[in-house]
């Protein structure tokens, strides 16, 4: 901390003022989106912003039901959950050995995994589109599940390695002395202890899947279209259904925010822990 001792009253007032200003700037657009989602088109397009009005749920009904946005949400959830489970399963198989043993080439393996995140998705998406078209995977669920697992695996390994490294080795050794097999002690002792870490890592992976657009835009069509791509349907160069977009946007954003606020503490800790076992 760069200040010493108790802050003076002036400093406290300044800190609160900066905090309130930042909060207004960062929260206002989200507030505005949610507010607009409950307006009629006339209210939303008034040249002087309307703050008080009778809210309507018409936008939600129209976009979710009539325009089938709920189907895109279902695709997003299905692909996201499947990919997250796969990511966690694969990440555990890498993160646990890296955290528990001092392996030859460990440093190189970790650097290589992290370096994969440097490749811009636009670079992979051109050849992948051609490859996936040739093997009939375009607009099939596995296409995005594979890509999202690939996208999230490096970060998941990084975070889980930190969570595994936190568990005292003695616990496992005690189990082994009591006659447990290494695999048995892993499932009965280690995995339950690391469960909060798995949840935090999984939630983060799920959010990244949920928000992803480039791969989804290129690799899906009518059957497997996800929510972010579905949003583009309502904003064509010809017409933009603003109030319905704000409703759909609210539906996309609010669950993530709720989850985010709940698991924030875990996430920040998890990201920091990755660095513990340098």
């Amino acid at each position, binding site marked *: 901390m*760069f200040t010493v001792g108790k802050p003076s009253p002036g400093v406290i007032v300044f800190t609160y003022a900066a*905090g309130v200003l930042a909060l207004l700037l960062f929260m206002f657009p989200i507030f505005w989106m949610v507010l607009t989602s409950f307006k009629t088109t006339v209210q939303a397009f008034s040249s002087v912003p309307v703050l008080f009005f009778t809210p309507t749920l018409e936008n939600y009904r129209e976009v979710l039901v009539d325009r089938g946005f709920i189907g895109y949400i279902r695709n997003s959830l299905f692909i996201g959950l499947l990919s997250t489970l796969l990511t966690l399963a694969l990440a555990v198989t890498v993160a646990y050995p890296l955290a528990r043993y001092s392996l030859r080439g460990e440093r190189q*393996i970790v650097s290589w995994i992290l370096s994969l995140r440097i490749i811009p998705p636009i670079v992979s998406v051109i050849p992948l589109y051609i490859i996936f078209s040739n093997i009939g995977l375009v607009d099939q669920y596995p296409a995005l599940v594979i890509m999202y697992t690939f996208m999230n695996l490096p970060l998941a390994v990084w975070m889980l390695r930190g969570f595994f490294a936190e568990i005292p080795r003695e616990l496992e050794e005690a189990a082994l002395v009591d006659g447990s097999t290494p695999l048995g002690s892993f499932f009965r002792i280690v995995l339950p202890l690391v469960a909060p870490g798995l949840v935090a890592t999984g939630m983060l992976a799920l959010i990244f899947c949920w928000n992803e657009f480039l791969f989804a835009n290129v690799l899906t069509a009518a059957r497997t279209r996800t929510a972010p791509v579905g949003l583009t349907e309502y904003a064509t160069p010809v017409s933009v259904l603003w109030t319905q977009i704000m409703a759909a946007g609210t539906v996309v954003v609010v669950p*993530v925010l709720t989850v985010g606020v709940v698991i924030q503490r875990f996430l920040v800790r998890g990201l920091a822990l990755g660095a513990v076992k*340098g």
Partner: protein
Amino acid sequence: MSAGRSALPREQVRSRRRHLVPYLVMLPALLFLLAVSIVPLVYSLVVSLLRFNLMNLDRTGFVGLRNFQLILESPDFWNSLRVTALFVVIAVGLELVLGLALALVLSRDVPGIGFFRSFILVPLALAPVVVGLLWRFMLNTESGVLNWIVTLFGLPRLDFLSNTLLALPIIALVDVWQWTPFMFLILLAAIQALPHEPFEAAAIDGASTWETIVHIALPMLRYPILVAVLLRTIDAFRVYDLIFMMTRGGPINATDTLSWSVYNVGFRNFNMGYAAALSWIILIIVTVIVTIFIRLLSGRGEQPA
């Protein structure tokens, strides 16, 4: 099992096998990562050497480095490079300044500060697609709330996103809105981890707050700042979602970033050979940038993996 291996004492064989187990456990995941990263890159390199248009597959053929030559001779490529560089500099530069300032101010432990720190992070969780649409709505000429604010200052309404000079900086500012909290998050954690002693010494010597920040805090924050700027640069360099939602590369080509340009050539003109070559050029540029950052970082000795 080879003859040499079976000549080893039993104990040694077992311990060697046990040493292999961690690697075997890691193998499937590592192979998966290898397959999904290397196969597309190699395939893309092959495609980049072809005349390969999905709308005209009959004319497919080997053209050597022709695609690369066409790109380097194209003014569109140099425009995209300039647009992307400008976007990265504006966005990441402002994010660093604002994120650092915010982290310094909000690092003071006053009651209830946790509330502010948490809610500032909210934009990070938003889908960039939603962010792009939301800001486009707020910037709308006729009814956008931001244009209403403009009129409060007695200025005429502006068509921000149709203006060739304004469109790119505006999109960069939207990026600043979403990602300044990321800089804030990393730098706040770094500031909180700083040792107390140098600051106590500075206080005793009567240094001003400004002097303390510039001469003591900033040099100690060099490493986290570089990491945060590196992560944001990698990310800002690939900007695509905001462009798709806000301007689609326009007006004219004022927001035609490199990622958008690859998408445009590949999935609107279906010229895969050219798009693959362009994406390899992007990969090389990114690798050079990252290498420079890593050099800067490793100048500081011990680095966490």
